[in-house]
């Protein structure tokens, strides 16, 4: 089977035209408006919870957001267009599981080290506030805006930021893996769709990786 899949090109995994995919984005906005106000508020609350050292509540709510995005976007809308949607949806549900796993108190979560506050806040706010504005601008319409807890890309970005605020060590890596993979897939997907700026998700993911790596280095130099 692997040698079969190796004969496929990237474009073979995108069986629809760009206008149809971005129409899906707009349709989700139309269906769920004015839920956007609540999701923005929730995102800001999650950032605050991460900063105020209440990680379990932040991660639990974030897990619920991921499950909602899997259901409302991937399993329902996107599944009409792509045979791979269910696998992607279950990947997102797995992310929710990993976030809950990261909450398990094997021992008290250690916040003795300086948290990666500013990288986490920056990445989370990018997903929450800037990415919707940029996508609306590139799509020439508010209906083109991609929004936290409604569309997967900004959810992945904000999720990485909140993880950076709330977690350390293996728990952090555990909860970054799927959002980083999602951002990589998203950039490849946008590239196939000939999007004007397809590399935004992967740049945000790279920033999260650098923030994770840089933290132990910063401690060594203290």
């Amino acid at each position, binding site marked *: 089977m692997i040698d*079969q899949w190796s*004969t496929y090109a990237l474009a073979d995994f995108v069986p629809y035209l760009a206008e149809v995919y971005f129409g899906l984005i707009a349709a989700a906005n139309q269906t769920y408006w004015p839920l956007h106000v609540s999701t923005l508020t929730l995102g800001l609350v999650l950032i605050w919870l991460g900063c105020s050292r209440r990680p379990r509540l932040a991660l639990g709510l974030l897990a619920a957001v991921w499950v909602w995005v899997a259901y409302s976007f991937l399993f329902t*809308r996107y599944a009409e267009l792509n045979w791979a949607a269910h696998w992607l949806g279950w990947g997102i549900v797995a992310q929710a599981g990993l976030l809950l796993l990261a909450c398990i108190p094997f021992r008290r979560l250690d916040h003795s080290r300086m948290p990666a506050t500013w990288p986490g806040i920056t990445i989370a706010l990018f997903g929450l506030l800037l990415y919707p504005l940029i996508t609306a601008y590139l799509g020439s319409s508010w209906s083109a805006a991609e929004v936290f807890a409604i569309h997967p890309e900004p959810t992945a970005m904000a999720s990485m930021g909140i993880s950076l605020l709330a977690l350390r060590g293996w728990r952090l890596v555990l909860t970054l893996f799927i959002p980083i993979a999602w951002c990589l897939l998203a950039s490849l997907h946008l590239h196939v769709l000939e999007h004007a700026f397809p590399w935004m998700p992967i740049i945000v993911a790279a920033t999260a990786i650098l923030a994770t790596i840089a933290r132990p280095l910063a401690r060594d130099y203290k």
Partner: protein
Amino acid sequence: MPEVVPTRREFLTAMGVLTAAFTLPGFSQAQSKALLCKPIPGSNQCLPVIGMGTWQTFNVGSSASLRQARTLVLQKFFELGGRMVDCSPMYGSSADVLGYALQQLDYPEALFAASKIWTSNGDATAEQLNTQQNAWGIQRFDLMQVHNLLSWQAHLDHLMQLKADGSIRYIGITTSHGRRHRELEHIMQSQPLDFVQLTYNIRDRVVEQRLLPLARERDIAIIANRPYGGGGIIKTLQSRHPVPAWARDELDCRTWADYLLKFIVSHNAITCAIPATTQVVHMQENMAAGSGTMPDDAMRQRMAAHVASL
């Protein structure tokens, strides 16, 4: 014999029909330039040389406006003499959208329904066939193909049984982008295929060397997919170069669609090409390419050389 005098109503109806015959675009085109048909080897059926693909173009999900737009494209296809429509389970909602469009058009009799089996589960051939039939809303496919050689041994065995019991009329296998040609050649040599679908266009001609001659030798019909290279070939040519005057004068090539499709369907091994489109005007251009003067071998070489030089 008593003289038959038409009533006023019969006379007016006849005038209406004649008026439609000379004014409706599809009708006039059919009258003036019939779509070239090629025989399906080993059968007494022939197929128009321009069919319709649905990769990406018909995958529009549940959008009512886009479904209606695709219905208009399909309507134009049938109006202009088209028959073969090709789809696959890999194409998202394309089968469902096709089924919607066919229902809107009351299932044209001309339809030559072609789809594919695309599952690694070699025992799921009949199940996927049934799923596709339900999506299209039809009783029987004319052609069922193994998509991209996936689990071809098991699926071809099942398809041969389904053909033998009359559930399908023809069986075939597909590939694209030049993939797995060596394996495809082996299958063409060893299996009783009716159709093979592969990529053939003015920039991708590798199949001319072995697979097309083999198809002629084995009486296998060839469907050419990606006639425009996924759209890249025609977009580049349209944006940068006019159709050469000699092609306009000698081959009735008014558009690059004419040029690119005539090149493909004039090959003696090609039965039909299946361009895909979302627009009625492009469907008209595609179908127009299936009529009028067709290039001979020398002209085909000139056409290929010209595009290669651009």
